[in-house]
């Protein structure tokens, strides 16, 4: 099983990398705060997949699953807090544009 499992590792990691590229691109190119968070979410999906694959290939499925469950919990909390921050910014500027974050008035 191990040799066979090893063979699926590379195809899966190709897709993990592709997901990662999508996520990074999204975060970099978007002008919307919520979309930036969504981009982060895609990246987190990518590593969830990577964890599961790693667990499957190495035969440590149970450990990998417990890691993934913990990861999901942390992810939810992190995203919730970030959403709270986005709402806070929205209440200040009434927009979700990331360009509002620029330091326009710098000292000196």
């Amino acid at each position, binding site marked *: 099983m191990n040799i066979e499992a090893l063979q699926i590792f590379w195809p899966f990691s190709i897709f993990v990398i592709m997901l990662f590229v999508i996520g990074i691109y999204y975060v970099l190119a978007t002008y919307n705060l919520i979309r930036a968070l969504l981009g982060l979410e895609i990246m987190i999906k990518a*590593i969830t997949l990577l964890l599961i694959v790693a667990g499957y290939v190495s035969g440590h499925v149970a450990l990998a699953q417990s890691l993934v469950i913990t*990861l999901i919990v942390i992810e939810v909390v992190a995203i919730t807090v970030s959403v709270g921050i986005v709402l806070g910014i929205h209440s200040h500027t009434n927009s979700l544009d990331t360009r509002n974050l620029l330091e326009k008035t710098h000292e000196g």
Partner: protein
Amino acid sequence: MSLLIVIPFFSILVFNLPFLKTLRKAIFIWSIFLFLSQIVLSCCSISPSFLTKFAKPLHLFNFNLNLDGLGVIMLFLSATILLFTLIVSHSFIKEEKRRFNFITLLLFTLSALNGLVMVRDIFSLYIFVEITAIISYVLIAFDKDMRAMSAVFKYVILSTVASILMVSSIAIVLLLTGDTNFTVIYEALHMSGVNPLMMLALSLFVCGLFIKAGLVPFHGWLPEVYSYSSASVSILLAGILSKALGVYTLIRVLKNVFGLTSQIGTILLVVGTASILIGAFGALAQKNFKKMLAYSSISQVGYIIVGLASLNPLGFIGAVFHFFNHSIFKSLLFVNSAGLEKEIGTTDMAHLGGLSKRMPITATTSVLGILSAAGIPPLAGFWSKLLIIIALFVSGHYVYGIIAIFASVLTLAYLLSMQRMVFFGKLNEKFISVKEAGFSIVLPAIILGAIIVGVGVLYPLVFKALILLLA
């Protein structure tokens, strides 16, 4: 030892019970008691026999925790700086409800930091890093100031990317070794020898920690976050949080998991030197007290990393010692900036001047902090910088050593010019009625200043204790 995590956490639960609302007023006293007892505990732990004797009966849960000398130093630092943050915040946050919330967050921080220090499992390390990061988001955004909010959003993005890098590294490690325990990974990696996949894992993890530590070129978020968070929070952030998240974990992971090889040493050397220089030059041009301190923070963290990169025990001790010193003097300087913010309402240096007559204690302690940061004998910062520079020379990194010395002069230059702009010179008419900051700000400043002088003068003792702890 698990109690160190559980007690603060449990007390949060108790204080938040809806039918115990009357108890909430005691949270201030209780948290001071907690911090103080942790300080005492960590001070006692300097003798190793105490550690083993004390740790055994506390082993309630099977958490796979461990405490070594570095951990003891971290426990001491986190409790000390949390204590001072608490005291300083007392004069900033007046409303009862908000104060309760703030203290609860501090207790969360204590619990998370203690966990971070003691875990011996790479995924638990990630968990506690993430908890600490989440709490720090809330702390920075606590004052719901727009600039702090936008700063924290940048921090959230970069920090989450860092976490993602760390987890992908963990996934690769899981693939290679089938476990997340430090010792297991260490042995497995050393059995298998050099492997490109392992190198990828190392690079992912280390880069994640570089982002968290705010090292050049991963430091973009740091200046804004430090300078726009509220006064007491920036003490906490600069003093312990980002150091624990980035630097401590870096030391821990390199030492216990991946091993300090000459390759990683070169990377640390380059990154550290870049941080030292860019931080110092960046600080030179700043017009805001807190922003200057933020850049100076980048530069000082660079010293720690460079000390680590010298790959010899002396450099390691120097790095840990500088870590300690940096936490102390940087939080001292931020306490002083809190004093300014409290009494004057701005930290923009263009508007300040001549305050040493009005705020003598703040001015004096900030001189202490500055001289320690610049490495002037006999203050604490001098010794750690000396150790690091000697270590660099011993390892044959002459160029880097000379750069480190040069940057030390730059540090003195920008901090002295800051001191001049803020405290010396002509007193602005507006500030004629300014008073010395309140007791809750002056007291931490004095204690921290005393620590700087004490550690500097009693250097032999401290150094012996460090060797005892880290050997």
